[in-house]
């Protein structure tokens, strides 16, 4: 079949985890496009059954080394809903603070180490550092500030150990934040520079009609709490998530595709959060957004790199606010009695909403667990992006088309380790 063409990327780089892309083109028409997730299954939902509910944060953290706080916090909130406890005041603020740290380290890692090289034509950030050492050094220092924040509150950057159901094992003294606060003040200015750099990158013209879904809270940009809303009128409590979304198991993926029932695929992550929660951003972040003309709905996924940078400004600004107002709480955690029930947790991982549901018995043993990670929710939407994107760039060489497709996938900062429960690229032309 001389008109059939297959281009292969067996292992998509600069994403977290193992995935591939299969694209088949016949007579210059796109025939098939599949995002394959071959990251081996690890069966977290199965082996959580029979474990004690207090173990869920530490165990589910191990789903992802890049966003453990998201797993820790979604599971903790689900358990607290079962137990009927609310964690407020400074403990609630500290939970926002550690989430700020995770957004900073994860966003800066993606913007500069994983995504920017695509826009600038480098294979990786190390190559980029050869030409622009100061930029990469700035990015590394920014990333480190986020990691330092997670380390200070959580004990270590990856799989932190200090969060628990009810609060924390140990809370810091006010003066513990002093050196970090100085670094965050540097980071605030650096992150505004980073927004300008991201905004200077050339993006393909590719505005799409999306259903954006994110948490929404009237008083704050969402990390841990809020209702699930969309730009198409969805507005639900997280406990109703499974009435509105279903997971479909498709053959080419070890991750389950999520679908908004009667609506189809949808978009979670920075673009969704930003478009649905612009008013909740800090004054500084809005000013930076206005300065670059981003006080608007953003529907070009390639511009997610700018939005991710704006969210980094927000996370740093919010972290400074929390630290400056911090007063050490009397107790590191609130007390509770174990009781059986079902609970739901949904928090905003750097890549988008992460849903957990648990059922526990009277002894606190987990009977069932369900986890829906952000990349699984985006997977179907990524495939549609590619289906819309490839026909516009059919004239590119296989090599250039492959790279552009990879870049389009990386718009979503996919985390395949999370989704498996991802990328090899085959382009087949006929």
């Amino acid at each position, binding site marked *: 079949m001389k008109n059939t063409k297959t281009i292969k990327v067996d*292992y998509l*780089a*600069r994403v*977290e*985890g193992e995935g591939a892309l299969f694209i088949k083109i016949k007579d210059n028409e796109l025939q098939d496009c599949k995002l394959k997730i071959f*990251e*081996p*299954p*690890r*069966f977290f*939902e*199965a*082996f959580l*059954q029979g*474990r*004690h509910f207090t*173990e869920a944060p*530490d*165990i589910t953290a*191990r*789903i*992802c*080394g*890049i966003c*453990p706080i998201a797993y820790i916090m979604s599971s903790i909130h689900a358990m607290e809903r079962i137990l009927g406890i609310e964690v407020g005041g400074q403990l609630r603020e500290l939970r926002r603070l550690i989430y700020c740290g995770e957004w900073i380290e994860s966003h800066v*890692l993606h913007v500069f*180490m*994983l995504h920017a090289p695509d826009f600038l034509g480098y*294979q*990786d950030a*190390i*190559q980029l*550092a050869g030409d622009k*050492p100061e930029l990469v*050094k700035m990015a*590394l*220092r920014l*990333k*480190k500030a986020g*990691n330092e924040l997670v380390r200070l509150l959580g*004990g*270590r*950057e*990856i*799989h932190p*150990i*200090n969060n*628990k159901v009810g609060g924390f*094992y*140990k809370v810091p003294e006010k003066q513990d934040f002093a050196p970090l606060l100085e670094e965050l003040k540097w980071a605030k200015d650096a992150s505004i520079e980073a927004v300008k750099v991201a905004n200077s990158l050339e993006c393909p013209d590719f505005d799409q009609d999306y259903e954006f879904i994110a948490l929404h809270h009237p008083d704050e940009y969402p990390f841990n709490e809020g209702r699930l809303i969309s730009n198409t009128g969805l507005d639900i409590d997280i406990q109703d998530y499974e009435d509105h979304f279903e*997971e*479909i*198991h498709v*053959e080419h993926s070890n991750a*389950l595709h999520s679908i908004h029932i009667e609506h189809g695929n949808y978009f979670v992550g920075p673009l969704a959060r930003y478009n649905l929660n612009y008013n909740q951003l800090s004054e500084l972040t809005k000013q930076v957004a206005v300065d670059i003309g981003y006080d608007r709905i953003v529907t070009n996924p390639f511009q997610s790199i700018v939005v991710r940078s704006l969210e980094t400004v927000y996370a740093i600004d919010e972290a400074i606010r929390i630290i400056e107002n911090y007063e050490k709480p009397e107790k*590191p955690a609130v007390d509770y009695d174990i009781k059986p029930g079902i609970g739901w947790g949904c928090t905003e991982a750097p890549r988008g909403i992460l849903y957990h549901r648990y059922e526990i018995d009277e002894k606190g043993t987990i009977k069932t667990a369900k986890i829906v990670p952000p990349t699984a929710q985006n997977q179907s939407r990524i495939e549609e992006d590619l289906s819309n994107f490839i026909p516009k760039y059919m004239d590119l060489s296989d090599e250039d088309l492959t*790279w552009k497709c990879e870049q389009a996938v990386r718009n979503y900062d996919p*985390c395949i*380790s999370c989704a498996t*429960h991802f990328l090899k690229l085959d382009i087949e032309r006929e």
Partner: protein
Amino acid sequence: MSNTKPKLAVWKFASCDGCQLSLLDCEDELLAVAEAVQIAYFPEATREVVEGPYDVSFVEGSVTTPHDEERIKEIREMSGIVITLGACATSGGIQALRNFADVNEFTNIVYAHPEYISTLDTSHPISDYINVDFELRGCPIDKYQLLEVVISLLAGKRPAIPTHSVCMDCKLKLNTCVLVAGNEPCLGPVTQAGCGALCPSYNRGCYGCFGPQDSANTDSMTEVWRHLGVSDDTILQTFRGFNGFIEPFKGASERLEEHKNH
């Protein structure tokens, strides 16, 4: 090793990506490392692929699929030195909990079409398939231990990684003992150091991220915990954690299971 830069490859098996991320988390040292070694294969960080053979391969993750059983052997063949990174690669990881259960049941719980899933019944450490030159412990690994490994490779020496217990680090930090003074079940006495006695420093018991220490007396640990009033079920689950499939943690949990069934 020759005068040219050593070629480094980073491979991933079943894992969370956290251990290889530790290399990117060396923010102050990353560019220096990239100058000292040739990063020849590291898909999490670069789309460039330099063909093997490789001087050094870092392997993250455990073997859980028929395809990976073959892949790890190919990696051994094209690598001078193989170093495993972290609990998954060294002990099978948290996903080795399936080794104590029926994997078909697990697949049915998670997936609507189990027939689409290709997986082994078990999750095994890399050393169950190939000779491994050095194993770096931890869930996750400690980035400074990783740097020690890189520096040692460049210097041609064996990495100086301590093998004493978490307990000893705790004493050095002058922590109050969470087990003796706080009645907290703590795996510190039987777990290898590497985290800096992190959990006890945060007023909680160690849960064994760095795996068993050389001369761990797990049965004695069980008795101490029983004495504290900890239930056998809880002790069993604690040994059966992120390093649950490596001896002597494995044996300790199996003996508790036998005891329960008699």
